[in-house]
């Protein structure tokens, strides 16, 4: 139609132009009622937003939901995802091939090696460092552990071991305890750790710091001290050789030990023939003589006090 008009216009000159004008005149510039309504609807902000945002998102949702509605496709997708994950995890960059343990003795290191849940080499994604650290920390002989995965696929374990401070005789066994009273290991032979003092009695392990303080205060008579015994889970007895005992009070036993040592150095008290030095009541220190001495003569020696 337009081409025809163009031809007419070119050939017909004025007449063609006139026809063109007539045609233009006839064209109604007004929008039809429907077009007007549609345009108004389109200019409504709510509708516009719904079409431009709501409709595409609804469409995407519907398509996704329809696609995922099939169980087989869902399983296939999960498989694919798992495979993808696997392939990333198993890349050589993420592999741990070696475990380096620092600061642990041989048996502890062996125990730690046994605790690793996976066999090396394994992906570093499979090793839960925090859980492994907690497991390692459960070993009695280990005070703390630091784990990190070093470059080059090395799992580095820095172990701080517990240092045994006393031996605790319980039943027939000897347990090594550290300075806080935590068990380190069982000792089969006393002579293996001759340097450690021995404590005994129920609840002794809960008062190890106190026992260590008493022992360090009793250093002047160290050669005579056999060990400490926890009495009634509340106070200590110092057991000396020659069947002698020093009964210490519940509170402030270190001062009591210092008093005994002062007496011993002044009067050579512990060299005398007595079995018990009772300092449980600090206002009234008491000693018990050995049996033969009581048989001969009753002579009490006032040691000190008001």
């Amino acid at each position, binding site marked *: 139609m337009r081409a025809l008009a163009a031809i007419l216009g070119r050939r017909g000159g004025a007449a063609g*132009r006139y026809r063109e004008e007539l045609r233009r005149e006839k064209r*109604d510039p*007004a929008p039809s*009622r429907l077009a007007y*309504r549609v*345009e*108004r609807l389109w200019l*409504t*902000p709510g509708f516009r937003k719904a079409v431009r945002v709501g409709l595409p998102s609804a469409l995407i949702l519907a398509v996704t939901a329809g696609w995922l509605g099939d169980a087989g496709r869902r399983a296939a997708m999960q498989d694919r995802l798992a495979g993808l994950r696997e392939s990333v995890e198993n890349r050589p960059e993420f592999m741990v091939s070696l475990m380096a343990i620092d600061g642990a003795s041989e048996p502890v290191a062996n125990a730690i090696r046994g605790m690793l849940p996976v066999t090396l080499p394994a992906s570093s994604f499979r090793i839960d460092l925090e859980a492994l650290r907690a497991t390692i920390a459960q070993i009695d002989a280990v005070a703390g552990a630091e784990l990190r995965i070093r470059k080059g696929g090395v799992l580095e374990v820095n172990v701080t071991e517990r240092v045994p401070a006393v031996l605790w005789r319980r039943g027939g066994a000897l347990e090594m305890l550290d300075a806080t009273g935590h068990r380190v290991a069982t000792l089969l032979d006393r002579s293996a750790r001759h340097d450690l003092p021995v404590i005994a009695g129920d609840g002794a392990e809960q008062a190890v710091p106190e026992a260590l303080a008493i022992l360090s205060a009793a250093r002047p008579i160290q050669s005579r001290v056999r060990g400490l015994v926890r009495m009634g889970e509340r106070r200590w007895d110092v057991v000396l050789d020659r069947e002698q005992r020093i009964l210490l009070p519940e509170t402030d036993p270190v001062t009591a030990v210092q008093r005994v040592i002062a007496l011993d150095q002044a009067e050579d008290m512990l060299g005398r023939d007595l079995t018990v030095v009772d300092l449980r009541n600090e206002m009234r220190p008491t000693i018990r003589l050995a049996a033969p001495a009581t048989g001969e003569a009753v002579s009490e020696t006032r040691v000190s006090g008001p």
Partner: protein
Amino acid sequence: MTDLYQSQRAMRNMRRAALQRGVVAVLDVGTSKIACLVLKFENAEEGPDDGLGALAGQSQFRVIGAATTRSRGVRFGEVDAMAETERAIRTAVQAAQKMAQTRVDHVIACFAGARPRSYGLAGEIELSDGQVSEQDVARVLAACEVPDYGPGREALHAHPVNFAIDHRTGFGDPRGHVGNRLAADMHLLTIDTAAVQNLIYCIRRCDLEIAGLASSAYVSGLASLVEDEQELGAACIDMGGGATGISIFIKKHMIFAESVRMGGDHVTADISKGLRVPLATAERIKTIHGGVQATGMDDREMIEIGADCGDWEKDRRKVSRTELIGIMRPRVEEILEEVRAILDAAGFDQLPSQQIVLTGGASQIPGLDGLAARILGQNVRLGRPLRVQGLPQAATGAAFSSTVGLCLFAAHPQDEWWDFEIPAERYPARSLRRAMKWFKDNW
């Protein structure tokens, strides 16, 4: 009367709702063009009530869409062919909406025709308790004696122009004053019901709600008269395509409005008949070469008329500008004579200032001011509408003064009768307010 009162109130509520929404369209349904502006109100609530705010109160709205289309189906400022008019309105509204990128649901419309007629109303009441209350204002407005303006006519505007208390007059707002008698003067403008109902039907067909109706003579006066002219007294003559509207303002109130059912289209029709050319050509010749003042070189200025009939003699016709002026001038003179007659009848010569402002599309004829000065008096100037924010350059001409005035009308309507309270006596017998009044009166 009450029916109209209710419908005007409903329109006011609609306008309030539109302002709350922030977007309202104004529609000037003229004989030669239909213009539509989309206004966006920045702060949805009304501005301060101190008369005029910043920028004469127009700072609160901005024009975000404007469209003009050739009018079809409108004659003498009235709807002639409903479907054609509806389509033209649709075109204008759609284009304006497209420019504004928003949808408008409320429209404020104005039109030039429908035979406006002015009445001056006066009412007087005794004040019951010395001081003027809102109820007293309502009562005095209700007491105005409404003239019998005949069947088939309705009130379009009813402005309280003046209040007087006892012997003091000139109150704009009498509330709180003390006196014995309260009197009010009201200006009532009535129009043909049928014409306005046709227009309302056309606008409704475009899915639009009417939020106000105005006479285009009134709103073009609002836009093209400056403040002192409105205050001291001036007449605005809006020379449109099919009708020429006349409105007289004093003390910022319109006190008279009329229209002459002649305009620029008649001049075009005269040229078309006189030169035997189509209307479109006549319109072109009028706008390019037209004039009303003869000059010495008119005889030498030959105008090619041109035609497309194929007859060389007819297609090569030329007329001198003298002939053109000879065709145009009598018609323009006739229009101005009619205006003169109306102004005389309205008592315009009694006003303190007798400024006459010519505006509207037909006022752009070169030399019109000189001709008008001869017929109407010396104080004649050509007026252009006020500048409003965002108005496109193409819509700042004299032809758009009623459109711009409609914007001002939308933003700041003057108080009309239906903006006041309804007097308690007019309430239905069982209303609460009436019961309260009874208690007040008896205790």
